[in-house]
């Protein structure tokens, strides 16, 4: 019996001896991950948890659902949710359609200007926030370059860039570079011969896109849509600068409740943040589910 134990011990010690350096390396490796994790916990995870908890706490520090009740009753907040969703849906839909065609055309271009075009689009994708709103005001404001030009030609009476129409235009504007950049490489997947094959077999161009083109790229198209949607829902600086904060959207409402001159309502701000975060997570999940379904359909 003792012998067996001895042997076991030796085996074990041997085992440990063999693996010690590996384990040590693993431990050291873990230490390298620590700063990353600390930063993520400090600046991403714990703020989110704190917001989540905060959304259930009223001004006296008691547990409550009042904040959620309030945001679903207040017309003003409901309007901001509706406005945010409206802007996001319209700009994503229109932006996606234009950038699909644009990315396809760009991908099919044969000349060498492609690279510089991509460079410009890349740069435009970072042209956002307050400078973008300024450029829009200068172009389309009541004394804007374009407004005057079109007025002089006689096409329009005037254009109100500070309105919903102006916002929709600006949102579509900042969605386009993003969509183009994300969708451009996806069209590489389409083999030009596939279309010929479909045509030979009697299918029209429409059939090709419906049965082959779109399904092949579906994952990326949905992913792009998701990013565009999140981008529009989270837009803040340009909306604020263009409308001076008068257009009621979720991001502006949230920030006005935590740092506004009028009201300090951290509970309501938290509940709205959780709602906004929830909407985006919901969209991510729908995206994944749809992807799985479609994938099953086409790959079986």
């Amino acid at each position, binding site marked *: 019996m003792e012998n067996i134990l001895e042997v076991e011990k030796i085996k074990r010690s041997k085992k440990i001896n063999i693996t010690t350096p590996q384990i040590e390396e693993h431990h050291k*490796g873990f230490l390298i991950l620590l700063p990353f994790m600390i930063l993520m916990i400090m600046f991403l995870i714990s703020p989110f948890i704190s917001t989540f908890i905060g959304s259930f706490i009223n001004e006296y520090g008691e547990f409550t659902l009042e904040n959620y009740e309030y945001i679903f009753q207040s017309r003003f907040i409901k309007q901001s949710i509706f406005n945010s969703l409206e802007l996001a849906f319209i700009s994503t839909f229109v932006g996606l359609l234009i950038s699909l065609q644009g990315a396809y055309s760009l991908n099919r271009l044969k000349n060498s200007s492609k690279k510089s075009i991509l460079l410009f689009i890349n740069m435009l994708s970072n042209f956002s926030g307050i400078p973008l709103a300024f450029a829009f005001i200068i172009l389309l404001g009541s004394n804007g370059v374009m407004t005057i030009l079109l007025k002089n030609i006689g096409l329009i009476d005037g254009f109100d860039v500070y309105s919903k129409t102006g916002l929709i235009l600006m949102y579509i504007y900042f969605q386009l570079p993003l969509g183009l950049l994300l969708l451009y490489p996806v069209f590489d997947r389409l083999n030009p011969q596939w279309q010929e094959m479909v045509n030979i077999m009697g299918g029209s161009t429409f059939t090709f896109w419906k049965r082959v083109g779109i399904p092949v790229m579906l994952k990326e198209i949905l992913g792009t849509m998701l990013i565009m949607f999140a981008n529009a829902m989270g837009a803040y600086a340009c909306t604020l600068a263009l409308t001076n904060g008068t257009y009621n959207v979720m991001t502006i409402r949230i920030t006005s409740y935590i740092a506004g001159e009028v009201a300090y309502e951290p509970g309501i701000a938290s509940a709205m943040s959780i709602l906004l975060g929830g909407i985006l997570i919901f969209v991510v999940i729908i995206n994944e589910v749809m992807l799985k379904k479609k994938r099953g359909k086409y790959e079986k």
Partner: protein
Amino acid sequence: MKNKVHMWIVTAILTTLFLPILGTLVYSLSTKWTNTLLPQGLTLKWYLEIFKNEMFLNAVGKSFWICLVSLFFIALILVPAVFVATYYFKKIEKFMEILVLVCFAVPGAVSVVGLIKLYSSEPFRLVGTTYILVGVYFVLAYPFVYRGIKNSLDGLNLKELIESANILGASTRMAFFKIIVPNISKGLSVSMLLTFSMLFGEFLLVNMLVGGKFQTVQMYINSIKSGYSGHYSSALVITYFAILLILTTLAFYMGEKNNRR
């Protein structure tokens, strides 16, 4: 024939995208432009005014400084972390991928609420200081820099490279510094430059977390809404755009060189 149609479509989209910038450019170069088809005169005085303005130069300096510091920390922390995760901890790698999605999907307005609540009182009084920006920029830049590092690492045969280095007597750490870092540095600098231009345009977080004390370029442009002429602000927008142009072009040429090697 088909190619021509595509050319027209691309041209139309690009022209539309450049219209606001073009309009702003012409406006910034004109002396006066109201109710006429073309500007009444051309001048460079708005640009001279900008470059004489200390507030603006300060803002550019501050923007550059905070972006550089943040990026420095991001590279310092993220490069070894992604390497370690890819080489040793497959599970953590998956977790990092999920974080990319989360960082991308959660807008600044959401995280700001929690950040203000957590860090405006002791023991972590960070709101109002620039330290907090380094932290939030880390989260903001993470998806982009992670992708950049990951793509470069995936291009290498990591396991074989490290194992051969080990067999030849080099420690894994040495292999990391002598083999991995030089190999990914070019790809990394491209993604860093692009991230830089993204951080450069950040407004919400600076505005909410630090406030008017720390004027970055976007904060400065926001602060001159009233009291300055439209020509002056359009010259500002164009200058801002020129900075973006330089950064992106640099990134592209570096990427090109990288591909050619």
